[in-house]
């Protein structure tokens, strides 16, 4: 018998569509409108066409910020994904200890960005902070005005804050693998690496994909932590795209230029997420 389908279910999607329209589509449309105009006093608009896009795309500051943001995302993904996977595979399967691990790892995730930035600012303080004072005791100067130290601190802070997200997502994925797979691997005499490569990775690929996408988007949009820790310095070396954008929109109040930057920012995120999604789905069949 032919299965009947009904399109009435689409009506159930309407509330979600209205929410998306209000929360995302309308602000996005406003940004597009701003990007082709020069805005004076917040409410007077003069048509400038594609001038902002040309200026932003040719701006060395924008190109440098974009490169820094992409580099930052690449570095934290290269550290957090393998580390999160490693932690997830080493966590106990069940029992009291697994619950304790889950709670402990959830703590950084529950900490607001603002607090994380402030805690790390205190932590690396040479006089009062544990890390800064330890380095000072060893005769080393923990100096956030040094480009390498500033970058290393922000990367370390992000790894501390977000590796647990990947670990917990992967742990949940690993828990869903039926025990029979491991029994079959044991019968076949599979090595630990073979189990990881041919059982665990294929089984958690969707979860891992979500984790990588979430971390890419979040790390590419990082704002609060570097703002609190380094204010984009020293000499703009930690000025990521988001800091550049906020500076343009809220401090210089160039809404047109900020609109053009936002659209380029959005298109980069869209392309990278779409590419990652397709590459990972294709590679894993």
């Amino acid at each position, binding site marked *: 018998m032919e299965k009947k389908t009904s*399109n009435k279910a689409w009506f159930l999607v309407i509330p979600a569509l209205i929410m998306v329209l209000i929360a995302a589509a*309308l602000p996005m*449309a*406003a940004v*597009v*409108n*701003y990007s*082709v*105009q020069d*805005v004076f006093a917040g409410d007077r*608009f003069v*048509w400038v*066409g*594609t001038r902002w*896009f*040309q200026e932003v*795309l*040719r701006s060395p500051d924008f190109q440098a910020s974009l490169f820094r943001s992409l580099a930052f995302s690449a570095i934290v993904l290269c550290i957090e994904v393998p580390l999160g996977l490693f932690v997830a595979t080493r966590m106990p399967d069940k029992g009291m200890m697994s619950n304790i691990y889950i709670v402990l790892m959830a703590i950084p995730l529950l900490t607001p960005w603002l607090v994380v930035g402030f805690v790390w600012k205190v932590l690396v303080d040479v006089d009062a902070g544990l890390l800064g004072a330890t380095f000072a005791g060893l005769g080393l100067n923990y100096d956030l005005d040094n480009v390498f130290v500033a970058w290393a601190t922000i990367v370390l802070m992000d790894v501390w804050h977000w590796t647990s997200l990947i670990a917990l997502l992967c742990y949940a994925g690993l828990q869903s693998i039926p025990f029979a797979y491991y029994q079959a691997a044991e019968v076949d005499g599979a090595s630990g690496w073979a189990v990881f490569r041919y059982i665990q990775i294929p089984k958690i690929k969707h979860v891992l994909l979500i984790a990588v996408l979430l971390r890419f988007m979040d790390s590419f949009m990082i704002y609060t932590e570097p703002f609190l820790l380094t204010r984009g310095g020293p000499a703009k070396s930690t000025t990521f795209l988001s800091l550049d954008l906020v500076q343009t929109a809220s401090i210089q109040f160039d809404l047109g230029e900020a609109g053009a930057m936002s659209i*380029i920012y959005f*298109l980069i995120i*869209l*392309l990278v997420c*779409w590419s990652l999604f*397709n590459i990972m789905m*294709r590679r894993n069949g």
Partner: protein
Amino acid sequence: MLSWMAWTWPTAFVFIGIFSAIALMAVLEVRNPGGNERDGILGLTTTRGDRLFITLLGSAYIFLAWLGIFGTPLWVPLGIAILWGGFCFWKV
């Protein structure tokens, strides 16, 4: 009510074009369900909607690249974007 959005006719036409294309996809889906799925030249399995998305995203990048390298006018990237759209719906 929407004065804060600072609408202009050119941007309005862009959005009308995008939403019309999405509406057209919906009509085509109702008339011919299944999304006309196929394995394209990029090694991706795409539906009509995927091909529209790739067309729009690629077109945005074509215009941005042209603006960044050559500036205005934009007739050439418009032609390239139309060719890109044709290629996407034909081969991708």
